[in-house]
Each structure stands twice: as C-alpha cells, then as structure tokens.
C-alpha cells in the first residue's frame, strides 16, 4: 500500500525547468527507482521547495529527486534523504525565510550550504545530520546565513542602502537608507550574534565606501510640513 511522504529541497537556479522526478530506495546506497513526477513546479525563480508524493512504499525509505528541463534532459540525482526527516540545509533555509521572507530562497540555499560547509569543515553539507546540531548552533548558522545573504544583496545593489534621489514638481526625495542603522551595521550585528552562538570569530571586512548623499549631509528623516517641500534623507 502506497504512503505519502513530504519532501523538502532547495530548487536549482535554472530558468527552463519542466518537471520534478521523485525516486525511492530501501537503502541509502541502494538502487533508486522513480515513483512519481510532477510538472506543477511553480515558475522561475520561485520553483517549488516542497513536494508530497503519495506513491512511496515506506516513509522510512530513502528518497532523491531530479529536475528535468524543457529540452527533456534529466539532471543528476540529489543526495538521498530519509523519509520523515529533513536536512540541516533545509532547516536553516526555512529558518532564514521565516525571519526574512523577502530573501531569494535560491540564494539562501546556496549560502546555507556554504555556511554549514565552512562551520563543520565538510565538503558536502548534506552529510551533517540535523539531529546532531544543538539549538544554539542552529541559531548561529541561521544568523550567519542571513549575514552572508545580506552581503550578497548589498554587493549587487538590492539592499535597503541603495541611494535614491529625485525631484518631481515640488516633491523631492533623497534617501540613503530606510532605517537608522546602515545595512553594514546590521550585518555586523548579525555576525556578532552568530559568532557568539558558534563560538568563533568571523568578521566583516569589506572595503566598500558608504554612499554620500547631498555632499555628505545626512539626516534620517526631514519632513517640513509647513512649507510644502517633502524630503526624506
């Protein structure tokens, strides 16, 4: 009798995917046989990251997935994962996305893999069993992954620190940040918390100069309601 098994995974950063294939094996190193596939996989860049197959033989078997692209080419099998379990990478990704749903899940997945690999000194982050990770380390890895994602965001100019300056009629807006704390300060705080949880020292050293606005004049918010000029700096 077939049983249902929920699978969580990190979708690839490929724009032309067509289908997801699910495989099952009784053992981790055994032969994986396709048991299910679906073409309901969302749309790029938000491919599905969860799928429940109703065709599994046992919830305790091992499962793997493979993505098929529009040309019909089937990608490599993923690392096997036991039914009813989740990987440390998936858990970290879920925790990061709960804290900041605006982050790109694909980037979060990649940075979570890197953070785990670096912390545990392993090449394959999927070899670290979730059950062996204490809560403080889980929290530290979550914060460390978030910091890595924000550094990537800032580097490509999509962070809140991007400067905006425009004038339309008598309305003008001049902003260099949307909050009182610069994005680099926030990343530094995240790293400090992560260091504390992970018991190590990892610092942010980036030689990026902060953007100056209006000749270096900076003010958080300046709104002159009595003179019809609205400025956000």
């Amino acid at each position, binding site marked *: 009798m077939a049983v249902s098994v929920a699978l969580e995974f990190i979708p690839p950063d490929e724009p032309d995917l067509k289908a997801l294939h699910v495989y099952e094996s009784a053992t981790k190193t055994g032969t994986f046989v396709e048991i299910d596939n679906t073409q309901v996989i969302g749309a790029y860049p938000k491919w599905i990251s969860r799928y429940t197959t109703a065709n599994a033989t046992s919830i305790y078997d091992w499962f793997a997935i493979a993505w098929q692209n529009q040309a019909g080419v089937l990608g490599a099998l993923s690392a096997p994962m036991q039914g009813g379990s989740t990987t440390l990478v998936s858990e970290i990704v879920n925790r990061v996305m709960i804290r900041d749903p605006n982050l790109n899940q694909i980037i979060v997945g990649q940075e979570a893999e890197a953070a785990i690999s670096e912390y545990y000194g392993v090449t394959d982050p999927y070899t670290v069993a979730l059950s062996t990770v204490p809560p403080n380390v889980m929290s530290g890895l979550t914060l460390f992954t978030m910091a890595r994602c924000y550094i990537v965001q800032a580097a490509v100019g999509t962070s809140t620190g991007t400067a*905006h300056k*425009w*004038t*339309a*009629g*008598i*309305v003008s*807006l001049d*902003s260099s940040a949307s909050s009182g704390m610069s994005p680099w300060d926030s990343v530094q705080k995240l790293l400090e918390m992560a260091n504390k949880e992970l018991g190590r020292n990892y610092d942010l050293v980036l030689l990026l100069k902060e953007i100056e606005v209006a000749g270096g004049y900076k003010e958080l918010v300046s*709104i*002159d*309601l*009595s*003179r*019809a*000029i*609205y400025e*956000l700096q």
Partner: protein
Amino acid sequence: MSTVGQFLTLLSAHGTDTRFYRVDSTIVCPCRTPEGFRDPEWHDANPAAAVCDPEGMLADPAHTVDLVVKAFVQPIQSTRATRLQTEYFTAMFGEVEADDHLGIFPYDSQGKVLNFNDWSQTSSSYVVYDGRKFLVVNANLIPDPGDGSPHHHWEVGLRLIS
C-alpha cells in the same frame, strides 16, 4: 525605474486622510419643476430623499468618485513664506486668498484615478481636509522623473468653500 512607489510610501507614512469627492455626471432630482427649477417644498415633503444641488440635480452614483486618500495638504500662506517662488503660487491661485491650501495627491488610489482636471466650480465636487470643504481651482499632473510616465502625483490649488 518608477519612483511612484517611494512617493506612495512617503504619503502613507506622513500624509493626512483627505476626502476626494468628484461628480462627473448628474441626474435630474424628482423635485425639479417643469420650468427647470429646484423645488424646496418637495424636499420638505420628502425629507428622506437625497438633497439636490441648487440646479435641481443629483449626483449620478455611477459617475461619482468618493475616496479617502492620504495626501499632503497645507495652507499656501505658510508655504509662500519661505520656499516656493511667487510665480508658482500666482500661477496656481491667481490672487492668493486666506485659507487657500496647496494639496499633493497621488495619481490614483484604490484602483480609481483621482482626476482633478476640469473641476466643477459649483461645489458639487469637493475635497474635504480637516473637516473643511475645498474647491479645486488649479491642478498640475506631475510626471514621474524615474521612467517618464505622466502619472506621478497631483499638485492642486484648493480654495475654501466652507
């Protein structure tokens, strides 16, 4: 890239609730006499009926926009004291009167366009700010400096009715 989103964020955070009421079409009130006059006696006899304008016309609900939107509204007299050039408010108001206000409104809200052009001067259409009604005496639709769209925001001259 459009800057409308940033402007709306600014409005949402710092704007004041202001009522936009515009009637673009009217229907004849039942009180209207065959001679084309408004009949106050009919309204006395029918107190529950909607009150028409002095010409015996009622707003057509199908062509009426009635919205409460976030806007920046302030007295032009405090505005003129400092930053705006004289030419600006002279063009906007002609001769400035006491209680004239300057309004900055979004181009649209809740899926409806706020049209300030060709504003009726009969007080059938009005803007309500801080409990007071204003007529629109002039309006400029400002384009978006980000992407060139003509629909960034409105700058409106408001004159007090009551």
